[in-house]
């Protein structure tokens, strides 16, 4: 029966996910087609109207919209995101080139973010209004208030240009350096897999500043939530009982932490989804070769296929991360499970 429950639940969630993605595809498809087509950009200013008409027909942009949509969905189901009309490259290749860089950055930012926010939140909750609480709140408010690209610029000016501790922001590796053999596409991981320690170290140095930027500017909500939910937990009946029974403070804290983790987990999942989709400006400032610049340029060029590909991928990640967070919450907390029958 337990297994049946999980399968039913998963099935329902996956079905909802597919429907949501379909909805996203419809909306983006309609919006991009309303903007106009990229034929003039492909042919350039010296093209004749006849040439434009011919190319428009070749690319199928003069077919009725529903027909174009059916064709697109048909390809999509087969895993084909189409070809960029601007670069003539398959969108799946272009995304595969760029997505790992964004993922690497988002993962590193998330990791650093969790590491400063959760412990600080827990400590701050021990003594609300104490100095740790006040300092951490100030830091969190700073991180929330400052635009991420601006904070990135400050870090660059200070650590790369003034102090010279970090490399200049030219991307993932030194100019002209060869990346390690591609396995995951994430340079830090690939360098480690290849046992190439100099490249690993160099890549870490390039990753550090943008990751810190994201960690500081995107994760403060996790700190706030950890603190609040820890305070609530510490004031709850079961903690009071545990204290009354004379359990060691460490154990009591652990009970409280475990119980306050569920909302923090959901918030972290949301933050991660946000990170993957919102690195655009940070990527631009650090010349990070991820999805950010790619998606912006594709939109500027009215290049349908990449825009759709990027939006679908972003939505899929959001949905997947939420699903994972929900599954973990259910595993941790039976009450959540009971709500889903």
């Amino acid at each position: 029966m337990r297994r049946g429950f999980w399968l039913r639940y998963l099935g329902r969630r996956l079905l909802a996910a597919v429907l949501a993605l379909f909805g996203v595809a419809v909306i983006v498809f309609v919006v991009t087609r309303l903007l106009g087509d990229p034929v003039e950009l492909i042919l350039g200013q010296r093209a004749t109207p006849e040439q434009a008409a011919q190319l428009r027909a070749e690319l199928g942009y003069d077919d009725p919209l529903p027909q174009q949509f059916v064709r697109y969905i048909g390809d999509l189901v087969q895993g084909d995101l189409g070809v960029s009309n601007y670069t003539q490259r398959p969108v799946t290749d272009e995304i595969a080139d760029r997505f790992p860089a964004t993922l690497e950055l988002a993962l590193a930012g998330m990791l650093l973010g969790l590491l400063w926010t959760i412990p600080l939140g827990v400590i701050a909750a021990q003594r609300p209004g104490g100095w740790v609480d006040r300092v951490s709140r100030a830091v969190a408010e700073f991180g929330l208030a400052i635009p991420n690209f601006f904070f990135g610029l400050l870090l660059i000016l200070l650590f790369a240009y003034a102090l010279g501790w970090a490399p200049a922001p030219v991307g993932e590796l030194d100019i002209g350096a060869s990346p390690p053999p591609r396995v995951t596409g994430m340079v830090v991981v690939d360098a480690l897999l290849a046992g190439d320690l100099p490249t690993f170290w160099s890549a870490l140095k390039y990753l550090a500043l943008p990751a810190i930027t994201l960690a500081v500017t995107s994760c403060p909500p996790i700190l706030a939530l950890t603190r609040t939910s820890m305070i609530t937990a510490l004031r709850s009946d079961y903690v009071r009982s545990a204290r009354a029974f004379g359990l060691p403070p460490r154990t009591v804290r652990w009970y409280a932490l475990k119980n306050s983790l569920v909302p923090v987990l959901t918030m972290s999942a949301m933050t991660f989804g946000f990170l993957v989709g919102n690195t655009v400006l940070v990527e631009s400032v650090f010349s990070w070769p991820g999805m950010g610049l790619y998606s912006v340029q594709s939109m500027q060029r009215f290049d349908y296929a990449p825009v759709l590909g990027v939006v679908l991928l972003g939505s899929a990640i959001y949905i997947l991360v939420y699903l994972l967070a929900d599954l973990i919450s259910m595993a941790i907390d039976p009450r959540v499970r009971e709500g889903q029958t």
Partner: protein
Amino acid sequence: MHSTEQPAPPRRWRIGGVVAAMAATLTLAACGGGSDGDSKTSTASAGGGSTTSGGGSGTLTIGVSSDPQTLDPEWGQAHRANETIKNLYAQWTRYEVIDNGDGTLKADLTKDPVGEAIESYTLSDDGKTVNIKLRPDAKLPDGEPITADTFLFKVERALEMNAGSIFDFNILGITKMSQVKKVSDSEIQFKLPNPSPIVGPMLRDQDAGLVDPKLVKEHMTDDDPWGTEWVAQNGAPTGAYVIEKYEPGRQLVLKANPNYWGEKPNFERVVLQVIPDEGQRAQLLRQGAIDIAADMSTDAIARLDGAPGVRVHSVPAISQDQLGLVNDKPPFNDARVRQAIAYAIPYQSLADNVLGGRAATPKGVWPQNSAWFDESVEWPYATDPEKAKQLLAEAGAENLEFTVQISDADADAQALAVPIQSALRDIGVTMNIEKVAAARFSKNLTKRSMQAWIQSGLGAYVDDPYYMAFLSYASTAVINWTNYKNEKVDDITEELSKTVDRDRRQELATELQAALNQDVPIIPLAEPNWMLPTREDIEGVLWEPDGLLTYRLLKRAGD
């Protein structure tokens, strides 16, 4: 109960400990980076040329705003792609070079281009047959000779694909392969319907560059009969540089073609590093991490001026910043209204204040640095608000209001629009400024759907009266974005298309300029210099009318 619950926290924290250690490494990497090698110096040394892969004289690093759109010469349109293509594909001809004596070079526009991948081209007496002699020593990168078939393949591929590059051949009157004949392995012949004065300049265009037929043929498939998809990503170079590696979104690394027959490139490697943010490109140039900051706005270049270690190369050019007024709809269908606007523009202030003094005020619709510019043609439009008001009154166009569109990718146009707006306000004209997405802007230009537009850096790739009239001012011209129509201009264009005699062409060019200055279908706002910020030790910067850099000639002082 204690014993079952107690172990849990330490285990969790152990995992946390590993994570914390990793994070500490990350943070350390940022702050303690000085310990090994110091990548700041190693990026700088990429500019210093210590990391070469093969026997040349080092590496040139150029910071660019984006990847080239394509590596296929038939489809290149945007500036970045055009420049890459120019350096990867051997052109048929080239302009001769004049040394300005200050580390910069410029194309000699007063002479016809000379052979590059070809030895020479000659026109028959009736001007309708072009005989092209090929160089015996020209080779493909794999060492095989470049023959007549290489040239024929190029033309056939362009014509068959109906790609952007057919413009180069169509403007000469070549529309079918039957007009292109192989006479022998070392000679080909064009049959033109009319004599053409611009054979040399058109064959110099970067998208007329030769592709490597063997490479292309290996990648032609049923779905993709001309190998477009493969060439777009991998290129099929024949020029001074070939591709060492291409990582889209990151870098494109070129290396000197070992079998290049012409003058050897000075740099063994050229790294085009994608630095999307203009401010970062400027900063990296100041730091010496890159040798050249490309794709910069005038404003950003002005801020680099005088920075230690940086040199802004500045060469008078033939491009213009223009205000286009759509001629066939009110209010601008009345020439007096256009003239009134031309009298209201604060030319000197635009050149000095907006363009930092690195621009000339216009002396005609025709660019003053063109070899065909005739300064005897009257250009009366000095800034004169009273005259402007008087013309508006004559035309009955008081309280004029119109909307000018600007591309959001055109920073200079935006900067120019604001002072123009206020100058027009002074003569009672309301100019609304509408900023639109670049792709939308192109579309509106093509559809002629605007009232007016401002664009910066417009210039013909070929300095020739026929080319410019055919492209911009004839009533059927493809980039006649103002729908300008003057029968006299159409007649002059027609005659220019088949007149080969240089003196007669100059007379026609002068007549054309007189008509344009009278009609002002577009208003030239300023003629900006061509500018390139580099490290101070970079020399051999060549300006050509296309504004595309030639990497082969660049060198480091002292090398």
